[in-house]
């Protein structure tokens, strides 16, 4: 018996070793095999957002593009500028088209991450905002005031930014975004600056106005979902949020309502990475995404304002009522080029101000 215990059963040992090796290979395999296969098959990599957004882009842009041009499109989630920097820095660019919100597109442009876009590819007079040398607007998102309609029916809630800052008429805690962009514009509009004279922003006046409202801001919201959930749970009475979020809340039968009396239109851009591996296809895709019918299809899925004016009449009426009114003189379209020069300093100053 004692002699047997010295003999470590060789077959069992072998089976254990073999089993562990197979298991670890099985776990590691997808990381090795898929990436090579995907790299071989992909003729275009488009970076966009996840969830329902991803589904919308797939259906309205990626699949039709594949059908028309025979180019396989891979959709990657979550645009991250730091990753772009790392790729461009190490000359190992793997992404082609990038879906960037205004400040991100402008920062990337300043740092030279994007390829210049040929203006001849687009119908420039049709765009709701001008394209820059390396970024073209894809759509506008609508920021505005929301409230709980069951608690604050007509007359009891603010609908313009001046009212949002009027704590006597509309008392109660409210929110603002925890960043300089959008917040400074709201402060100036609330303070009485005319929408068409907003830029260049009078920063001192904006901070003075913000000082007035600071005690009544219960939350400086970092994460966008909270802009609506805080109103839903009654934590705040009014909030600054986006039309798409309120649309989703209403579809979930929540009594949240959104004001279209005064809105901030932010812009989302499409850019192409510098030295992208599929530059020609990327340019084709960007041009494809700006076609009015494709814009209409994408915006029907996402619920935002298309960059192409001629796409507007092509959209479904139940989605159109969620779009900002382009003729509304109280609205302001974000001036991303101004922000490109001032974003860094103002954000630092804003962070300091919020802490104080």
């Amino acid at each position: 018996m004692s002699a047997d215990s010295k003999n470590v059963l060789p077959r069992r040992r072998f089976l254990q070793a073999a089993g562990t090796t197979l298991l670890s290979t099985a776990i590691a395999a997808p990381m090795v095999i898929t990436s090579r296969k995907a790299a071989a098959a992909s003729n275009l990599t488009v970076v966009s957002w996840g969830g329902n957004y991803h589904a919308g882009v797939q259906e309205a842009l990626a699949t039709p593009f594949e059908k028309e041009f025979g180019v396989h499109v891979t959709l990657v989630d979550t645009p991250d500028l730091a990753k772009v920097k790392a790729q461009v820095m190490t000359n190992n660019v793997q992404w082609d088209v990038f879906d960037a919100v205004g400040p991100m597109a402008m920062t990337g442009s300043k740092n030279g991450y994007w390829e210049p876009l040929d203006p001849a590819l687009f119908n420039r007079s049709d765009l709701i905002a001008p394209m820059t040398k390396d970024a073209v607007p894809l759509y506008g998102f609508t920021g505005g005031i929301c409230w709980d309609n069951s608690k604050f029916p007509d007359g009891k809630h603010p609908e313009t930014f001046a009212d949002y800052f009027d704590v006597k008429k509309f008392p109660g805690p409210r929110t603002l975004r925890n960043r300089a962009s959008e917040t400074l514009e709201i402060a100036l509009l609330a303070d009485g600056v005319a929408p068409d004279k907003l830029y260049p922003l009078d920063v001192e006046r904006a901070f003075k106005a913000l000082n007035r409202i600071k005690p009544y801001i219960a939350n400086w919201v970092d994460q966008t979902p909270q802009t609506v959930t805080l109103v839903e749970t009654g934590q705040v009475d009014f909030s600054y949020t986006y039309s798409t979020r309120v649309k989703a809340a209403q579809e979930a039968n929540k009594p949240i309502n959104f004001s279209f009396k005064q809105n901030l239109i932010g812009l989302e851009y499409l850019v192409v990475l510098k030295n992208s591996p599929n530059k020609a296809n990327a340019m084709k895709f960007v041009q494809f995404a700006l076609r009015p019918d494709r814009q209409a299809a994408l915006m029907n899925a996402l619920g935002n304002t298309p960059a192409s004016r001629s796409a507007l009449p092509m959209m479904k009426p139940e989605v159109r009522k969620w779009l900002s009114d382009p003729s509304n003189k109280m609205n302001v379209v974000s001036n991303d080029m101004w922000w490109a020069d001032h974003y860094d300093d103002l954000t630092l100053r804003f962070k300091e101000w919020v802490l104080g």
Partner: protein
Amino acid sequence: MKSRIDGLLYVGPATVFLFFVLFVPLAYVVYTSFWIGSGPSLSAYQRLLGSDLFLRTLWSTFQISITASVASLLLGYPIAMHLAKQTPRKRAIYMVLVLVPFWTSILVKSYAFTILLGRNGLVNQLLSAAFHTRVQLPLLFNRFGVMVGMTNYLIPFIVFPVLASLLSIDQSLYRASEIMGAKPPRIFFRITLPLSLPGVAAATLSTTVMSMGFFVIPALLGGRKDAMMSNLVDFYTRETMDWNMASAIGVILLGVVTLAAMGADQFQRREAKKGVMA
């Protein structure tokens, strides 16, 4: 001697791997903090140490992480003590229960905490009903909310090291002290606490270091005064692409934590030299 070589053979590959995966990137971060486009410079450090925003954020980061780990210790130590007294089978079940907070994402939890701790949340409603007035304690979106969220996350990291320490205490010590006539409080303060100190120190240090890197929990559950260093690093890394500043912040944090760890280590060595009291 042979066991030494055997040991190196087993640990060697892992060390080499860790060297490349951990130390080389770390060295690159340190290098990035000292190097700008035109050559080596301390400009990032000068800007940071002269920046009011940085110093205030650093201070609040320390406040939050030290308070969070002490609070987790105070809440987690009794849990570990209770677990130490169980039979191994029951202990296994309890350990799984301790890990339950990890099963939900923080975004979902922050929504749930709003329902519990919010202005019109369950806690406030209960207190209102009990005191027959409208109670609206500010329990969320301030330092208290951050503490709730952080302890929720950190308690498992306290319970396990402290539990390990408690389990390693020789059970005969308890029997001996009972025979000698000691009452439970005396046993706790003279035997359990001193002998569990290594586990407590390890747990507190690791939770403090971990919580210094948090930023989602304070962002979702905290107020405007609860900004953490990671928010600043995130800003420089992902928004302004100023990796020079971001690495400088990282190096400063790393330096502070290393000094704290070395200090704690020295303190531990002095305590160990005093000998184990029984």
